[in-house]
């Protein structure tokens, strides 16, 4: 396979998967696949990779919040996992810090990851008002008005009526802190979220993942690996990312 030709085919495969080829261009590409079945294999591999990436992107929306009993079970399972992780971490503990850790972390967290206010109306007017205000603060973040968003969330913390609201506000503030490079505040907020029993599993997995990234930003490999193990344990949408990152960190540790 000539390299230049292969790259050209690769570009056409990419365009095909993105839905950017006309019918006649698609047929031309399939003709190439028939002439050279290795191109077809590359296409199939890229198609499956793209699908994995898209699943990773959308899986968050497919996970439904679980019952309180389930949440408690998760909480205690996590507590048990934390004990094991503590032992593992102790075994692997090291003091050298790696200056490149920062480069492995997410550069920023998209505001689509934020926890919205509930759209269901409550009998309690105050509850409904807080949910509306959470959405208002999230909307400010969407418009990249981070300072305004943080201020709204801070004010809301004084008027929350439930633990569920407090934890969602804390989670959203942690994301804002992360994007404003206030990593110590982000760490504290994410830790507070992961310690709560009131958080939905979907946000719990995300909180551990973002906490792991925050630790990377803070150049703390040990804590980052501990948080990544939690992400792997929860086996959610960031599992692939977490597995890859963990392996990289393990190699750096050697």
């Amino acid at each position, binding site marked *: 396979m000539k390299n230049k030709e292969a790259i050209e085919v690769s*570009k056409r495969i990419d365009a095909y998967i993105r839905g950017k080829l006309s019918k006649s261009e698609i047929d031309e590409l399939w003709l190439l696949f*028939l002439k050279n079945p290795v191109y077809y294999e590359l296409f*199939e*591999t890229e198609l499956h990779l793209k699908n994995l990436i898209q699943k990773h992107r959308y899986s968050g929306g497919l996970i439904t919040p679980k019952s309180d009993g389930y949440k408690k079970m998760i909480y205690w399972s996590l507590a048990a996992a934390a004990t094991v992780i503590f032992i593992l971490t102790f075994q692997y503990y090291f003091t050298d810090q790696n200056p490149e850790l920062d480069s492995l972390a997410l550069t920023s967290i998209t505001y689509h990851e934020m926890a919205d206010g509930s759209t269901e109306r409550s009998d309690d007017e105050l509850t409904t008002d807080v949910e509306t205000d959470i959405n208002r603060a999230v909307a400010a973040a969407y418009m990249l008005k981070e300072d305004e968003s943080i201020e709204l969330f801070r004010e809301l913390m004084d008027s929350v009526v439930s633990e569920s609201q407090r934890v969602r506000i804390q989670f959203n503030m942690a994301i804002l802190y992360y994007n404003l490079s206030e990593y110590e505040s982000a760490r504290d907020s994410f830790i507070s979220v992961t310690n709560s029993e009131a958080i939905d599993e979907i946000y719990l997995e995300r909180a551990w993942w973002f906490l792991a990234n925050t630790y990377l930003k803070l150049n703390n490999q040990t804590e980052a690996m501990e948080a990544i193990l939690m992400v792997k344990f929860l086996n959610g949408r960031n599992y692939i990312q977490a597995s890859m990152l963990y392996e990289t960190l393990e190699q750096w540790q050697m």
Partner: protein
Amino acid sequence: MDYSELVEAINDEDMRTANRLCGDILPILKKYLIATVGAKPEDAEDAVQRMFEYVIPKIQNNEIKSPSGLLAYMLTAARHSYYKIKKEYNSNKFDLIDENLVAEPEQPWGLLDKEQETILFQCIKELKNHYKKLIRFLFDHPNAVSEDIAEYFDISVSNAWIRKHRMIQKLNECVRKKFE
């Protein structure tokens, strides 16, 4: 692969070679129908078989004027063969099925296979660090194009294409080995 060899084999009545060559392209022709016209695997198989039954006598009767264009001819013939099958299935419901009225999927997601996805996932984990960084970037930025890769890794756009292509090659080699 030059399919003028198939024309020669059929004309020489070398059915062993002819069968081998037809067998080589049959899976891709099937997948072509699954991807482009949304055919079910069993209908696609049926359509390709019928296409061969239609095309081979044409080769024997020297009706194929350009052997090098045989594959393009087969693609079109396979598609028409599929439309014919659909028309037969639906003959009680419709008087006529025009191929232009059959909704064609724009993207080939019908080709996805659960087992292959699982194997690919294993292969991603086995990639070397150099490529893992690229994979991580793609997972973080699902809609990233080569220009984004180039900017992030501070390389030229053509090098971004090369890096991505090589990563796909590595993944493909790994998937192939695990399937063997």
